């Protein structure tokens, strides 16, 4: 890893140890069912790097994301962010940490209040924080519009007037308003067209090297994961079953699940009927 912002000699930005999350669901005329969304997950991410999390639906990727963003409370385990244990922090201390971890969701259309204009959407996180004046918020919003490749005259538009790619850029800009350290991207590219995915992926890489951001990139697109990540972790049924460098995971997968996931990727280089699985 050669990027100047990546620093493996420092302690990791995020450390997760034995994270468990169980949901209990009442079945009809039956006992309460315990669903283990996360069954003891442990890993760490170093500052300035990208960890890709791949897995099927139901593997626990999204639950993990929600726990890390403090939007869900894990049943047990440890989440250490910049040295502090997130689960033991009081509300006030937690509030200081929240801006540092931001999340970007899959659906560009439903992430925004449809009645707010672009500038209002951008200003919202700051307005919430309540410490800055209106002019400061506006200028900061404009800066971020520019940095995410959106033109300033989009400021007065509604989300519905933007394209999918523009909306995701807006989501990224909004996330960056609070100067976060860690961005959790939950299938953030999945709903976009291929050519637009490439544009947003490039933007993410640029922003990472300019700002020293750390990414947790959740996806089921193996190719994009391999392209963006410094490390790939494979999840299945709430467990992390494999983790390693992209080339290693792709070329010499150790786990059956990984092999299955790789086999399911549609590829462009075949010319005849695909071998029946």
């Amino acid at each position: 890893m050669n990027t100047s912002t990546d620093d493996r000699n420092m302690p990791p930005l995020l450390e997760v140890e034995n994270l468990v999350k169980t949901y209990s669901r009442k079945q009809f005329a039956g006992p309460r069912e315990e669903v283990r969304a996360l069954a003891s997950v442990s890993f760490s991410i170093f500052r300035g790097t990208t960890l890709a999390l791949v897995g099927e639906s139901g593997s626990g990727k999204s639950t993990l994301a929600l726990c890390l963003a403090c939007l869900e409370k894990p049943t047990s385990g440890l989440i250490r962010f910049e040295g502090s244990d997130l689960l033991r922090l009081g509300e006030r201390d937690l509030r200081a940490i929240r801006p540092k971890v931001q999340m970007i969701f899959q659906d560009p259309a439903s992430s925004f209040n449809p009645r707010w204009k672009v500038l209002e959407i951008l200003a919202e996180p700051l307005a919430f924080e309540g410490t800055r004046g209106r002019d400061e918020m506006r200028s900061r919003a404009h800066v971020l519009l520019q940095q995410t490749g959106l033109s300033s005259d989009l400021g007065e538009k509604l989300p519905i007037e933007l394209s999918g790619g523009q909306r995701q850029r807006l989501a990224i800009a909004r996330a960056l308003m609070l100067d976060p350290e860690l961005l959790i991207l939950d299938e953030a590219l999945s709903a976009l067209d291929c050519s637009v995915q490439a544009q947003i992926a490039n933007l993410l890489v640029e922003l990472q090297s300019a700002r020293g951001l750390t990414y947790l990139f959740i996806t089921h697109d193996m190719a994009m994961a391999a392209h963006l990540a410094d490390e790939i972790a494979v999840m299945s049924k709430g467990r992390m079953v494999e983790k390693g460098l992209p080339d290693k995971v792709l070329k010499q997968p150790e786990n059956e699940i990984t092999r299955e996931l790789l086999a399911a990727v549609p590829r462009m280089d075949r010319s005849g009927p695909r071998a029946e699985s």
Partner: protein
Amino acid sequence: MESILEVRDLSVSYRLRGGDLHRALDGVSFGLESGEVVGILGESGSGKTTLAVALLGLFRRDSVVASGNVLFQGKDLLKAEPNELRGIRGKSISLIFQEPSVALHPTMRVGQQVRRVLAAHGMSDRTELDRRTREVLEALFGEEAERMARAYPHQLSGGQRQRILIAQAIACEPAVVVADEPTASLDPTTQMEILHVFRGLRKTLGLAMIFITHNPALLSGFADRVMVLYAGKVVELGPATETLVSPKHPYTQALFRSIPPLDEPHDAGKRSLPTIPRDANLSPWPPCGCPFEPRCRERMEICKSDDPGFVNLSETHMVSCFLYENQ
């Protein structure tokens, strides 16, 4: 082989609020042969969904202006009476909608939803309806068919809902199935399963299919021919093997280049992906010239002013680009 469906010079425009016409499709022509799979490759704004909807005359608004021909079994669907269209929809030509989570009635059991398609097309005997519904569901769910039939859409997974949409589409054994992004919201394993289902159906029912997607990899090994749409126009049309492996149109080439390669080594430098500059324009397309011109790396003066016609690179492969004019 004769064409089972032939689209000739199909153009569709929507009349916007201000009175402007938004051109969604412009001069689209292609043929679908019996038992063939034609893949339509297009991103947002390319007009692919309009094409799907136009084939069956399912326009929602009256403010649609359509011209050209959609010939099916000797009849022009664009000029057909509503009753005739209704008889063809679901019976001879079926449409599988995007987004299975919203394409099913939320409070009706899915078995019932399949049954209604059958009932709409002349089957009235109750035992016959039950039998045929069961048959169709068994083809898609095997032993689980009984249990599935009683479920409601919100109780099913994405893949299961997609199978119900497929069941509805094939219930009356149509000649043509048009699938609009049938795997878009599914994860790769489920995607593969659904493609597998389509392959099976193609074999057993001899279906001709139009498979619309924005992901070219899905068409590999599945489609016989690939048609690329950009800004409502056909920019390339050819055999899948040729078009997917060595595309000719600059847009197709740029599109494929922007997809991260799975098999090449990934080094720490995190190369940036080659992208198509600027955004696809959402506003009405320019009245003349090639719509891809502003973003094309091969663009020439003539591209701004003239419409590139169709150039036949071979008997089966054609491109709409001035680059190939003088070959």
